[in-house]
């Protein structure tokens, strides 16, 4: 797509540079710390799985045993136990679930540990690379069968088996991406539930078994429809890296995975989130997963016209955090949204300007474009038209990942028919005006061009003010979304640990190496 807005490259470069300067001190903090969920994720990558009779997951059992010794890396104790007991991973998991302790075995020969770890890393790498090549092969085989942008729907019945019906129907109707929304409460749990689940509110628990069930169901449709179906979940909340780990193992293709969402919107402690997001993103990077960031959330509390620059600023920060976690531009589903009050005269022009702006500033990123939600009402007919204009802008500006707006957004999580109507709407609009973007130029200095310039300029200024105080202070002061989050408050702070000198994490090492960090 050729640029249409004449945005000044030096201001874009300036914003990128500011993002780098803002992120860099945070990165130093991250490198020096680990968390309970980073450790549990590492264990999961090694194959630790299962739960005890009370439903406490084995990774949690291990980490809970270790307390302060976590600073050395939980894997050390687990691998030591493997070596000591001679058990295989399954066997040891079973024993831990039954009460076996790994924290009080004499520590074995470092070389033996290294060797055993190498096997585990090897098994992990093979599995995840296998997943990647499976995905790549299917994408190559059915290469031009996906829509452009990818049509993305959610399922959220609370019951994985109902979700499967809904997801398969959506895939047959043309969806390219299916996201299983998580239950309302999950992001605040400091563990990942185990097994298939049938009870959730406004969403379905993210569990490894649920991932597996949905993946298998969608794979059936893939070959029938000759179209790869991307499966998505949420590497977000208190267990970001663990969910990323499960997704890598079960071949999820996309993950909601923002560097600051948990802090701002779930009141999770900022240190904790910064550390967690890094490791989760490394896993996603290696697994070839496309992340989705959550900039759209700013606009659910702030005004979309006034605060458009917060979205762009956050995209720059997310881009920077993603880059240093090893994600390639094609994996960066940076978020933005069509969230202006529909009664604004010429609101469409501003939405168009901003969508085009995002496209031009992040030309390689598969931008994740979110539909109207805040101004959707019980008037499903008007809502369907709001969604149509959103579909229009998305196609016209060449977005990458298109979340389908539902006419019932203000009422309930989508019914099967709602999803169908959303797909029908998008397919009709996008096909009917497919190449309009190519055919049209914007008037120089006109409303559209001006709007984009203005938002970019406001963004640079905003990033400058953040750079001046530092990111953590900026968040404390409520510069993002008017939400103030003190650095020593928020959930999950007690799960943060400084890395000890002898911190050992061969998975992290492997990923660092593989990702060239």
């Amino acid at each position, binding site marked *: 797509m050729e640029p249409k807005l004449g945005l000044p490259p030096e201001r874009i470069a300036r914003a990128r540079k500011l993002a780098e300067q803002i992120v860099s001190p945070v990165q130093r903090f991250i490198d020096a710390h680990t968390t309970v969920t980073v450790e549990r994720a590492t264990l999961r990558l090694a194959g630790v799985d299962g739960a005890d009779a009370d439903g406490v997951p084995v990774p949690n059992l291990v980490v809970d045993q270790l307390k302060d010794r976590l600073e050395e890396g939980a894997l050390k104790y687990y691998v030591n136990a493997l070596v000591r007991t001679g058990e295989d991973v399954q066997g040891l998991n079973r024993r831990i679930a039954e009460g076996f302790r790994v924290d009080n075995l004499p520590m074995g020969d470092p070389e033996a540990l290294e060797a055993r770890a190498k096997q585990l890393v090897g098994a992990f790498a093979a599995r995840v690379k296998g997943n990647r090549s499976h995905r790549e092969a299917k994408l190559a085989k059915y290469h031009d069968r996906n829509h452009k942008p990818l049509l993305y729907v959610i399922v959220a019945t609370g019951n994985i088996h*109902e979700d499967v019906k*809904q997801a398969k129907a959506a895939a047959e109707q043309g969806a390219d991406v299916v996201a299983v929304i998580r239950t309302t409460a999950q992001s605040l749990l400091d563990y990942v539930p185990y097994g298939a689940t049938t009870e959730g509110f406004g969403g379905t628990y993210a569990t490894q078994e649920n991932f597996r069930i949905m993946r298998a169901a969608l794979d059936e449709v893939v070959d029938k429809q000759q179209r790869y179906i991307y499966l998505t979940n949420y590497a977000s909340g208190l267990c970001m890296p663990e969910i990323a780990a499960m997704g890598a193992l079960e071949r999820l293709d996309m993950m909601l995975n923002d560097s600051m969402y948990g802090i701002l919107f779930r009141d999770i402690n900022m240190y904790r989130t910064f550390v967690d997001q890094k490791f989760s993103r490394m896993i996603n990077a290696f697994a070839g997963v496309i992340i989705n960031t959550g900039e759209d959330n700013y606009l659910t509390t702030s005004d979309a016209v006034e605060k458009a620059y917060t979205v762009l600023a956050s995209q720059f920060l997310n881009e920077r955090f993603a880059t240093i976690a090893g994600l390639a531009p094609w994996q960066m589903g940076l978020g933005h949204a069509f969230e202006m009050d529909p009664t604004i005269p010429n609101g469409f022009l501003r939405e168009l300007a901003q969508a085009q702006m995002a496209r031009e500033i992040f030309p390689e990123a598969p931008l994740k474009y979110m539909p109207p939600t805040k101004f959707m*009402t019980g008037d499903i007919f008007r809502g369907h038209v709001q969604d149509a204009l959103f579909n229009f802008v998305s196609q016209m500006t060449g977005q990458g990942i298109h979340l389908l707006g539902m006419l*019932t957004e203000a*009422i309930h999580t989508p*019914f099967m028919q709602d999803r169908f109507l959303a797909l029908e709407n998008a397919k009709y609009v996008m096909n009917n005006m497919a190449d309009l973007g190519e055919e049209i130029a914007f008037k120089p200095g006109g409303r559209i061009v001006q709007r984009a310039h203005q938002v970019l300029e406001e963004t640079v200024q905003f990033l400058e003010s953040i750079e001046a105080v530092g990111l953590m202070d900026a968040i404390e002061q409520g510069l993002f979304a008017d939400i103030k989050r003190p650095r020593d408050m928020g959930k999950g702070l007690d799960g943060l640990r400084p890395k000890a000198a002898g911190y050992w994490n061969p998975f992290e090492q492997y990923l660092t190496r593989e990702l060239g960090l």
Partner: protein
Amino acid sequence: MTHIVRPYGDTLNDGAVQLSFTLPVPVGPRGREAARLFMEKLGFRHAEIVHAQALSEGFSFYVAYGRTEVSVDYDEIHIEEATGEKVYSMNEACEAIREKLGRKVVIVGACTGFDAHTVGIDAIMNMKGYNHHYGLERYQEVEAHNLGAQVPNEKLIDYALKVGADAILVSQIVTQKDVHVQNMTEFIELLQARGLRERFIVCAGGSRISNKLAVELGFDAGFGQGTYAEHVATFIIDRLAERQGRA
């Protein structure tokens, strides 16, 4: 066997239905409650008015979602379409005519009464057909006469007699105030009065016509949305062959 079926939102048997309607009352809490009560009276146990909107001083519009326990027994559903699973292609139809009847089939059609919506009957009869399905004029073994729009019933019957038609096709698209029912009934009564009802195979069609309705009104068959010439040809050929005892 019974196979109970209820509407489905996101959980089996949740009975979820979307409704919209207008009430001749002003908008406001009382109108909203009237709308909710109306839903309850329709048998929705869980009724939510999700949108209320004034249309004018005395009218208000509601969007609603409800859940109901009302169900149907799918196993007891009895349908009778004019044609079954097997529908002849154009070539098969001509083949069947040659084989079973050994002569051309004469078909006369029109949009009757004041109805001028010829697109539907043209779709069935004209050479060009519809949606890549040729019309009856293209069938080598069919002699098709399309009289077009606004043809009085009397004139259609006269014409059918004149050309020795085997079948008459009546198209009715306008259905407001049941004008199609009046018109179709008049057609059948005319045929009966003239002692011609058994002389022709008579079919009706249109976007709001079902086989059920047409048969109730005394036609041999009725055809709705999505009909192609093949369907009508199949029905006519089989019925003619049946009459000749050569089905």
